Every structure is written in C-alpha cells, then in structure tokens.
C-alpha cells in the first residue's frame, strides 16, 4: 500500500481484445509490489485448479465468466503506486461487445495506454478505442507495443507497428507521447528495462506514466455553477451544486441562465462548523445563499455576467451510440448536460464516421450501436449550453432513452448563434423591475402557484369547451384561474391582426406574453388557441419556461370537420374563408407535449378530469414540494 497522500493519476488501459491489457496490469501490480499478500499464491492455485498456465490477468478478471472465457467483461479499477506517486489503473474491456464498459472506464482517466500486439499490429478495436479516446477528449497517450517476445524482439517490427499506430492517431488529431516496446508477461519495459531490447532507449512504461499530469480542475475558465438542488429549511434557502469551472466568491453577482435572473452570493454554507469561507473553485461541491429570493431550480446555470453560456435550442454534437436501437432522424431522447435534463429530437445526422477507414457519410438516416457521428439536436426549451471547445466540463452531453443511457458526446456550438441576444428587447432603455414579492410568497397567499396551460389543437378539437369546463371546476375548488380564448382576444388586444402567417405569429406572441404576466402574478392561465406553429408555441414557452405546459387537444381533421361547431370548415371548404388551419394552412402537432387529451376517443368529462388532475399536480404547493423533494425536517 501507498504512503503518499497526494492525488492519484487515473490511467486507462485500452486496446484490441487479447492484446494483453489485463496481463499488463497484473504484471505492473506485481512489479511495483502493489499486490496484496497472498494474492499471487491465490491466483497460482486458482490457475492450477483450472489446469491453465499462470495468468496475471486473473488479478483483474474477477468474474468467473471472465476467467472461464479469458476475456475482460467489465471495466475495473485498481490502486497501485510507483516510487513517485499513486495511481488508479482502469482496465477496459477490448471486446467490441463491451464498448460501453470501455467508455465507462476511459471517461474517468487522465491518461491512456493503448496496447497493441506487436505481431498483429493495429486491429479493429485498436482504432475504435483510439477514436473513443479522441471523443472523450483524452490528450495524454502512451502506446505499448506488447508481446515483443512473439516477434523475437525485432526492432524492425516494432518500428513498423509504431508507424502504423502513429499514423492512425495523427489522422484523428491525437498524438502518442510515447511508443514503448514491451513483453508484459515477462515484465520487459514495464518497471524494468530489458536485456532483450537494448536497442530501445526511450522510457519504460512506469517512467512514461510518471511523466503524465493529473488533470487539474478548470479554475481559470469562466464560472459555471450548475444548480443541483435547492434546499429550504427554516428561513434559509440553500442552492447546492458543484462548481464545474472557474471560481465563485461571496459578494459576486451571479447571473442565472436560462432565466436571466441576477442575485448576489451572500454566503458559502458549511457544516459542522460555521465558516467564513469566501471562495469556492472548480471541483468543489458547495451550498450558497443569495441576496434575492429569485426563482432558481435544478438545471439552471449560474455564471458571471461578462462570461455567460450560450442560450440555444439547437446544437451539434459529436456522439457515440451505445444502444441496440439505432438513433434515427426525428427520434426524441432525453439529454443531460450538467444537472440539466431536456427533451431533444434528432434534426439531422450530418456525418456518420467510419472509425476504421475514417470514411464519412453525409446526411445518414441512422446511427447504429458502437458507431460515431456528428448530429444536430433540437430541444423544445431554450437552454444554457457551452461548446466542448469552450468548456470541456459542460460541453458534453449524455443521451437517455426510456430507462437507459444510450449515447454521449461533445457539443459543438460553432454552427449556431447565441439566442440570448435575439430575445433582448429592442429598446435599450428598458429595465426589468425585480419584484420583492416572490412566487413562493404569492403561492402561500393564493394556495397555489401560477401556471400556463396551453391548449393547442385544430379548430373543433374541443379546446374552448374543455377550457370553460376546466376553468369552472378549478375555480370552484377555490383557485384563481382564467381562460384566454382565441376569439375573445381577437376582439380586443389583437383586433388589428388578421390570419396571415405573420399575423398568426404576432397573435400568439402577444398571448404568450399576456399569459406569462398573468402566471407571474400567480394566476393559473388556461389558453385555448389553435396556435398551429411549433415555433410560436416554443416562443410562448420561452416567455415563462418555469410556468409553461403544452397540452395537445388531439382529434383528427375528419372528426373536427364533422363537429364543425362554428360552421367554419364548411366555409373554408367552399372557399369563403382563406388560410384556414387544417384546410389550406398547416397545423404542426406538438413534438413533445406535456399532456395529450384525445377528444376523438374520450368523452368531455374524461378529458376535463385529465386536465384538472394535471393542473393540480403542477400548481399545488404540496405537490410541488413532493416533486421537488424538499428536505424533511428531522425531529
């Protein structure tokens, strides 16, 4: 065991199956005297019992199945030390089937050793693993040309394999810091030099590892403090999270994205002792209090005002895919960035990359398991994003489908503009008034939070009917609810607008803003507009993202036309009305509605109950507490 207190370097060992990764690690542990007493004897007896020659790989391949098949299944971590420092060795499986386990291991590493069989040279998984290292942002790489004993310690063969490796690495923008000839089973060039390879004058593996640096926290980058949770106890509200990059000080004005709210850090909290701590830097998990009770929740990102993250609802990413179910254009997934989770849909698969010959296919239809691609993703809500080039911590995303992690990758923001600017008002002399009455205070007064429940659907789908019924039901339960109806608004606020696409957009923009004001005032707003364009509804959401819920009132055109409550379809068919949605003007159904009520299949009462339940779940104080998991105060 080690007597060094310093940090450990995480090094991952990757490479093609059977090129000797586990053996290399086992031998490394042995040669640095890092094996526990009795471990060697244990393995000797296990090998004898199994009737196989002594296998160093048994040190790591702990599973029966791994020993039976002599193949590493899952990544493992083991601690060892050299005279200079402590290490965590991460063993990654080489078999193609276990790529997800290789990535799980390699993503945690500061440095990588790519093991290549001297006899076999660069193989499929050598290339794939190297490409994954590139996608994972690995910079420190050593190549171990292993099993030199198999090629008679021939320097010419070493030279050939070295060149082959270096060429591939270079083609994907990586560089091998060291290329070392080795016979891991015998310990040649691991800890000790080798009589058999006196022609090699470079570093041994241990020397190479000792020369790598431990990744240091990104303190010099702009501040990013993604909110992990908000704890309320007694009168205090503490925002917790990890400072991912940069430094935060008490007294700093923090700017929160995507809400554009501002507040000053009043304290960095600590336990068990009260401390007068005034700074927190990258890598530290902290809790802070703010000067203003602004609306903040998990997923919001705090930064300094002069170095804000980009706001966008569209971005590109270089991804690897891990699921049996291919990623396809148009599919929707959940993406996590820092502590934020958003629904995204695949707008395009721009380039599919063959990791073997680096061939590129443009505009592909799908990405299959273990493949890599550049894709464009679009989210419903606008969100704070950093590109990987700008911020290696937050410029990464992990993709989920159903219960599972299905992919991951690095974000590229070079092709898309910051949308924060386009959201700013035209006049520069506008200053938002910040309220001293908070949403929580309003909720305590009214017995519920405000919210926008945005019904969208074809004319005749039942929006107005449902809205009026839901309004009455919720009002009778003592809550402040108000319906914004299309026809009513067009008689007043929007009497200057017609039905051209531009006027429809403006109509919805105004309604969205009115709804946002009402919801901020603590009112439950139920809006009933056809609102045919997704982009318009998305903008309405952006006016008050914390309040907005999109409810799709679903009924097919045939049903709606048969109902025709206002006789409008008849007029549209006869040409008396132009640009009627569904007839000669498009309707874009919601991509990811928060709720769908199907009025073609269900009766009015069922749909009303469905909406009422949904609203109550989202505005009631108790329900919010449950979903936000407020701290239970212990006895």
């Amino acid at each position, binding site marked *: 065991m080690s007597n060094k207190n310093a940090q450990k370097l995480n090094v991952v060992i990757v490479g093609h199956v059977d090129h000797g990764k586990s053996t290399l690690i086992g031998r490394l542990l042995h040669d640095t005297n890092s094996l526990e*007493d009795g471990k060697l004897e244990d393995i000797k007896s296990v090998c004898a019992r199994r009737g196989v020659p002594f296998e160093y790989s048994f040190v*790591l391949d702990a599973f029966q199945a791994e020993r039976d098949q002599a193949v590493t299944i899952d990544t493992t971590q083991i601690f060892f030390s050299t005279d200079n420092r402590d290490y965590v060795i991460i063993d990654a499986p080489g078999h193609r089937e276990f790529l997800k386990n290789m990535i799980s291991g390699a993503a945690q590493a500061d440095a990588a050793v790519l093991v290549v069989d001297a006899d076999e040279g660069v193989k499929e998984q050598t290339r794939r693993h190297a490409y994954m290292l590139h996608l994972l942002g690995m910079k420190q790489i050593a190549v171990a040309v292993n099993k030199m004993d198999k090629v008679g310690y021939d320097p010419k063969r070493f030279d050939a394999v070295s060149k082959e490796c270096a060429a591939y690495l270079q083609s994907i923008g990586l560089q091998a810091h060291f290329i070392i000839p080795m016979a891991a089973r015998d310990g040649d060039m691991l800890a000790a030099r080798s009589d058999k390879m006196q022609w090699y004058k470079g570093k041994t593996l241990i020397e190479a590892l000792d020369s790598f640096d431990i990744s240091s926290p990104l303190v010099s980058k702009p501040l990013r403090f993604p909110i992990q949770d908000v704890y309320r106890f007694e009168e205090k509200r503490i925002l917790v999270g990890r400072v991912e990059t940069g430094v935060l000080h008490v007294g700093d004005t923090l700017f929160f994205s995507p809400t554009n709210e501002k507040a000053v850090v009043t304290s960095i*909290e600590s336990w068990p002792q009260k401390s007068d701590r005034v700074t927190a830097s990258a890598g530290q998990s902290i809790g802070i209090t703010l000067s203003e009770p602004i609306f903040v929740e998990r997923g919001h990102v705090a930064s300094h005002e002069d170095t804000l993250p980009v706001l966008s609802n569209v971005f590109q990413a270089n991804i690897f895919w891990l699921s049996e179910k291919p990623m396809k254009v148009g599919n929707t997934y959940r993406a996590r960035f820092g502590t934020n989770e958003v629904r995204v849909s695949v707008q395009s698969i721009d380039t599919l990359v063959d990791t073997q010959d680096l061939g590129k296919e443009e505009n592909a239809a799908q990405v299959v398991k273990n493949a890599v691609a550049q894709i464009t993703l679009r989210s419903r809500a606008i969100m704070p994003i950093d590109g990987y080039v700008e911020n290696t911590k937050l410029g990464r995303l992990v993709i989920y489908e159903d219960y599972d992690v299905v992919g991951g990758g690095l974000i590229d923001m070079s092709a898309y503009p910051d949308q924060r600017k386009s959201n700013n008002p035209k006049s520069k002399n506008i200053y938002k008034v910040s309220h001293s009455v908070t949403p929580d205070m309003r909720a305590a007064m009214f017995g519920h939070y405000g919210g926008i429940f945005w019904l969208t659907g074809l004319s005749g789908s039942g929006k107005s009917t449902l809205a009026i019924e839901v309004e009455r039901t919720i009002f009778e339960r003592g809550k402040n609810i108000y319906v914004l109806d299309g026809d009513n608004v067009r008689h007043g606020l929007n009497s200057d607008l017609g039905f051209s696409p531009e006027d429809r957009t403006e109509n919805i923009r105004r309604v969205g803003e009115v709804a946002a004001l009402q919801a901020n005032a603590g009112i439950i707003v139920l809006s009933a507009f056809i609102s045919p364009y997704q982009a318009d509804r998305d903008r309405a959401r952006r006016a008050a993202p914390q309040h907005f819920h999109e409810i799709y009132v679903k009924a097919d055109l045939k049903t709606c036309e048969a109902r025709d409550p206002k006789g409008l379809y008849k007029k549209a068919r006869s040409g008396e009305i132009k640009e009627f949605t569904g007839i000669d003007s498009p309707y874009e159904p919601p991509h990811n509605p928060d709720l769908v009520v199907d009025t073609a299949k269900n009766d009015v009462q069922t749909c009303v109950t469905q909406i009422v339940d949904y609203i109550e779940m989202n505005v009631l104080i108790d329900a919010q507490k449950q979903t936000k998991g407020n701290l239970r105060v212990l006895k």
Partner: protein
Amino acid sequence: MSHHLDDLESRSLYIIREAYARINPLGMLWSIGKDSTAMLWLVRKAFFGRVPFPLILLDTGMEMDEVYAFRDKLAKDWDLDVINHLCPPEEEMDQTLPPATRSAMRKTEGLKTLLAEHQFKGILCGIRRDEQGLRAKERVFSPRSLDGSWDFKDQPPEFWDQYKTEFPEGCHVRVHPILHWTELDIWRYTQKENIPLCDLYFARDGMRYRSLGEKNITKPVPSDADTIEKIIHELETTNTSERAGRSMDKETEDSFEKLRSQGYM
C-alpha cells in the same frame, strides 16, 4: 493531502445530492462500521447537518456487543432515524452454501424483505472499489432487478457523472457514494473530521478488528495500533487484505461473486 481528501469529499457530496434529487424514497445502509459511518458523516455534510432519509441496520442479531452499543450512542447523540431490520434466520438460507457464505446470505435476504416492506427505490451503500475485485467493477449507481440480483455482465454505461436514475417498477438502485475511496482515505478522513468510531477498531491485547462483520464470521487481526495515527501508519506499510478477517470471501473461488450477484452489498 487534505486537498486529496477535499476532492474525494466533493465527489461524494455530489453523488449523495444526485441520489436525493433523483431517487425517492431513499434509504441508507448503516452497518455501524468505519466506512458507512464516514458515509453518514458525508450525508450530514451534504444536507448541512440533516439526514433526510432513514438509516438501516440489517441486523442478524450476531453483531458484536460493542457495535450495538455504538449504534445506540450515535443514534442518540446525532438524533438519527434508524430502522433496525431483522434478517431471516440461517435455517431459511440455502443449506448447500458453505457456512460463512450462508451466514452472509442472511443480510442479502434481509435486504430483500426490507425493500419489500419499505419500497425503497434507492439504497445508499458504503462499499469501496479497493476492498475486493468484484466491488472494483461496480458502478456508482448500480441497478438491481426485481429479485435484487446484480446483472454484472450487463452493467449500464456510466460516464461524466451522469448516472442511471430511471428504473422499471419494482427495481431499485444501489448508490455507492464512497466507491472511489480507499481504506486509507477513510482513515485519514475520519482523523481529519474527527468522526466517532466503534472501539473494536483499536488494538487491545495485541489484536484489533480491521473490518467489522458478525461475531461468527469475523476475526481480529494481530496489531498494536491503538490510535488512528498508528492505524494509518500500519496501513501505510501493510500488504495484507482488508478483508483478511472475513471468512466468507474465501470459502470457494466464487463464493463472494455468488453472494454479490444475488444481491449482497
């Protein structure tokens, strides 16, 4: 050194808060040993002195007396909500298992009955990678199927601190906030933070417990280390396995794998 411990602590706090934000209801296994007591300390740090979920002792009735006494003292001093969950008796275990493995199986079965009774979706568990080869392969968020078994051949991908937090009905997840710590890290942290510990870890008459298990399957090891400083010094120079005093690990080559794949911690 303390920089290193700060890093470990920050990572654990992040994991604990992630579990609390994502998974509900949550419980934590507290075996009263040094690891889970350090984890309990980290939980209190994460929530500024509070413990917002119950602690669970899977009680076989075979813990050492000092362990029970320490549990009662800490529960009182720290005002803890402890569920003392009784494990099914040894007669109900698979009788073909070797004796120590069979005895350890009681905790696995106890955990199953606990989950059935309390419907926990997440269980915090203080295992570490350096303890044992199989634990070295664990994920931080490790999903368990309906019967509690560990599908170690098909573990979910886990990278960039994004964890698997969604599960089908009936499944649960083991959360391992101190997976990345070593035995020495735990001791140095215990020393730095002045975390209380059960006396059995300190040498008396030339023997001390390095790892606390049940009476019948755990033995003390020879040692003169009667203070934390001496224990740290001892560990800095030893190459013996931490679990040397645990007989269940070694009855057969795969006895620990059998235990773990069926749901053992």
